[in-house]
């Protein structure tokens, strides 16, 4: 990854023009605030939640609740189906201690790790700045981040008397991304601005890099999160490096080590997924009048409101969405094959319920007559390949297991003869 150079600021013009006008925005914000319930603060979306949202772009329910800033965990509790999530305080304490260690000395350690990967010479400590980003409220913090970032880039580009430019580390900046037409505030762990004004996103994680490698699924999730920050920066007309600096504990220790991970694929994927999200205006417009997700409402009214927004449940929801148990029980009641996995649902094509699939599997094949030229094939059995495959599968299972093939753990004995000879 030696030649991943940090990019200069680039003016991005294509973002303009697609933004809604200020009046639209504030009307939408009012509408979402009303849905949340009077006087409730919106629950901020973090990048993890956003990647989970992006991973299920077909789910309007989640898109709407997240955009409105409804506390889904509390909502699930009211609905009587709380998620099994939560963070252990042991993990929390360790994660915090690790992040504090990795960002100590005004980010000097982060800069050292970055330089070790890019081959850049680390700056003189004098030339390293760590601006204070504290400000009132998210809007204030976003503004403060914007200023600090512009300043840092300027510092980088104009070294004193042609000397090397100054470096900056922005710890916990705040950026904004428009998701499904509604603004979302996000807080990356850190941004490093180098002596050429190039910006690198830093993601600090507490899973280890063990003997030089880390769990691919975790790296993938971290990279997708970083990609979300990349898009948010783009919206601020800052183009960050296309590789994220992933900082993790080394082996079994608490010492930071890092990897520079290419996130171009994730950038493209998240961009595509976010584009596929239905715009929140359309979702709100489709709601029945009087819909509210106010957590003080009686559970049955809340359930009614939630269920009026279409969902797209899949088992992956269990790992990423607080409403998973609620949506799952709904999907189970509705006999939705997606409870077994997205793949199963796709496989079944037009058979959209488990019952329909089982009926098809155990249906009798049509009599062979239709090929008779005097009787043109009737409409009785359209040759749905899913139906044919299921029927064959059921026949083969019955051939081996005998009868209806139903048997629990204790009834698995072979009925169709011994091993294949």
């Amino acid at each position, binding site marked *: 990854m030696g030649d991943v150079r940090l990019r200069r600021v680039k003016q991005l013009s294509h973002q303009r023009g697609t933004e809604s006008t200020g009046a639209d925005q504030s009307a939408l914000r009012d509408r979402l605030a009303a849905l949340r319930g009077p006087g409730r603060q919106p629950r901020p979306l973090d990048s993890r939640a956003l990647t989970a949202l992006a991973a299920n772009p077909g789910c309007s329910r989640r898109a709407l609740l997240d955009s409105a800033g409804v506390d889904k965990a509390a909502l699930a509790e009211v609905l009587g189906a709380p998620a*099994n*999530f*939560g*963070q*252990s*305080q*042991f*993990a*929390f*304490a*360790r994660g915090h201690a690790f992040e504090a260690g990795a960002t100590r000395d005004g980010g000097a350690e982060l800069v050292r790790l970055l330089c070790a990967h890019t081959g850049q010479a680390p700056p003189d400590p004098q030339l390293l700045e760590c601006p204070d980003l504290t400000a009132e409220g998210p809007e204030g913090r976003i503004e403060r981040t914007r200023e600090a970032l512009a300043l840092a880039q300027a510092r980088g580009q104009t070294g004193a008397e042609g000397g090397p430019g100054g470096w900056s580390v922005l710890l916990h900046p705040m950026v904004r991304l428009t998701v499904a037409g509604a603004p979302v505030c996000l807080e990356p762990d850190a941004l490093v601005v180098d002596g050429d004004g190039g910006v690198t996103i830093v993601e600090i994680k*507490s899973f*280890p890099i063990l*003997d*030089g*490698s880390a769990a691919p699924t975790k790296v993938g999730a971290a990279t997708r999160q970083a990609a979300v920050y990349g898009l948010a920066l783009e919206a601020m007309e800052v183009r960050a490096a296309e590789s994220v600096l992933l900082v993790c504990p080394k*082996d*079994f220790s608490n010492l930071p080590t890092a990897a520079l991970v290419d996130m171009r694929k994730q950038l493209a994927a998240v961009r595509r997924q976010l584009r596929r999200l239905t715009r929140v205006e359309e979702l709100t417009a489709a709601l029945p009048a009087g819909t509210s997700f106010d957590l003080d409402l009686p559970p049955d009214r809340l359930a009614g409101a939630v269920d009026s927004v279409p969902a797209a449940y899949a*088992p*992956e929801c*269990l*790992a990423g969405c607080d409403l998973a*148990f609620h949506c799952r029980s709904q999907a*189970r009641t509705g006999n939705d*094959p997606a*409870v*077994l*996995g997205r*793949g*199963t649902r796709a*496989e*079944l094509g037009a058979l959209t319920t*488990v*019952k329909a*699939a*089982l009926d098809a*599997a155990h249906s009798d094949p049509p009599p062979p007559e239709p090929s008779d030229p005097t009787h043109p094939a009737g409409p009785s059995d359209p040759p749905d390949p899913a139906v044919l*495959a*299921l029927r064959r*599968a*059921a026949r*083969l*299972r019955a*051939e*081996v*297991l005998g009868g209806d*093939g*139903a048997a*629990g*753990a*204790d*009834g*698995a*004995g*072979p009925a*169709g*003869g011994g*091993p*294949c*000879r």
Partner: protein
Amino acid sequence: MPLMHSLARMEAMAAGRAQPLTTVLHRHLSRQPLVLVPLTTAGEVGAPLGAMLGTDRDHPLLLTVPQPKDRDLRFTFLSDLAEALLPHLESALEETEQVREDAEVCTDAPQLLVPNAPGAEFVRLLGRSMRFRRTAEEDPQTPYPSPARVPLLGRWLTHYGERARVPGSSLLLSMTEVLTRHWATGQSSLEDQHLGALLAWLRAGPEGGGDTAALEVETARDEHGQLRTPPSGPSTDPAFDNRVLAPAVDRYDADLPGSAERVHQLLGGQLRPVWDAMWESVDLLRRLPEGERIASRWESDRWSYTAHRDRLRAGEPPQPRRDDAVTAARKLSVRERDQARLQAQEALDDPLVMAERRLAGEAFVAEVTDSWMTYSQGRRPMPRPVLALSTEDTPQWAPGARAYRVLPSGAAQPAEFLAPEDEPADGSADESAGAPGAPGELRLRLTGGMGRAKEPAPGSVPEVGDRVCWTLFEHAPRGGPSLPEPEDTPWTHGGPPQSGTPLPEPRTAERHGTGGQSGEAGRTGGTGPPGVTDPVAHSTLPDPVTAEDLL
């Protein structure tokens, strides 16, 4: 997921109870396995919190760490773990059988059972965290000397953990993976990771109810917000950590009397239900008849165990941190081969698994409707009988493609598909056998497995009216691409391995002269009679040749 499995899951949903995916057992299950249920500390890498283990279901050993951040306490735990596990892991070192003049293999190997895949991964991680430790005896200067037998346990657990990645191996088994290989539940594979929920589906009788029972296991909490059925580890439930464990650990930190016992008791309460679920699972698996080819795969495991023993005895250093490029590539290609072999063997052992392959067009059952003799060209014409077959299956074949069936001896008999116009029947063919080329009508020419004589050996040619199962896959798939020797590793792939990680001489496999082994070999390797150009001579000494055993 294969459609057959989707169907079984949907049937399980409808019936409220698990449905079989197999008719026989496809993993070796020892007479005396050691069950190990580990717990890890959230957020700490490879930091053990406790474990319940043993070979006697009524007398588990419970080991716990009252303050997981304390290195000394962790060392005490690991030391106790070594004392408890090593006798089991070393229990089969001495009993061997001589398979060749220069090769002996342990007659058995100890087995470890853990609840789920993350549990198996944790075993690997524990192994990694221990095997490079130095004891004060080895290195008086070492800052935190490890208790005596801990590094040795690390090497064993590394070996077992690594071996668990080999398809079909059974030294270290994850219970949820074994159960889901044999039964389909009415939930997704994600939910099947919870041993308790999985068992709820398996326990349900004809009246169903597995779905509600599984939901109860997964979500029911008591008045303190604690899960009634603890998760199957190695992670604990966050609510347990925060509301129960953390206060208990705080009391331990404050040096309150009885606080260590309290942590011990609390962790025991989390572990015991999983422990019981493990043994219930063992009972379920024992009810299945054993697949015929399990023994040959278990033999590979015994070789792997023996090779690890030999490395320890030879005083070799611990397994390296990272595989060099050649070793890694070897492992990969061996695993691909093992995967193909496992799939073939499971299908051959089990008509229900074969049914999946039939559905996929990779195998078919056909009735012999006619047969006639032809001979090969050349100086010594050999019998090449042609069979006309009729099937309701839909094999994906092309002229010249190979098909195999199992001979009564257990060996594989090869054949090739003929195009409809090839080898017409000599006029006497019964018209009712169906026109060649019509759907379901096939022709195969047997190309081996009939002995060396001019007439096929008795029983080596199916007769008209026989129903025979043919596969389009080999019964004993061979290894992947050839790779350079380790010392010839190109610099682009990291160069030859560093000295200090010596690689043992690869042993060449041999099939002949293995005495009592040959019967096994015939079946497992699918080797036909001599003269048949059939695959795999190397299945009696399978793994010693491979990188798996260098671990």
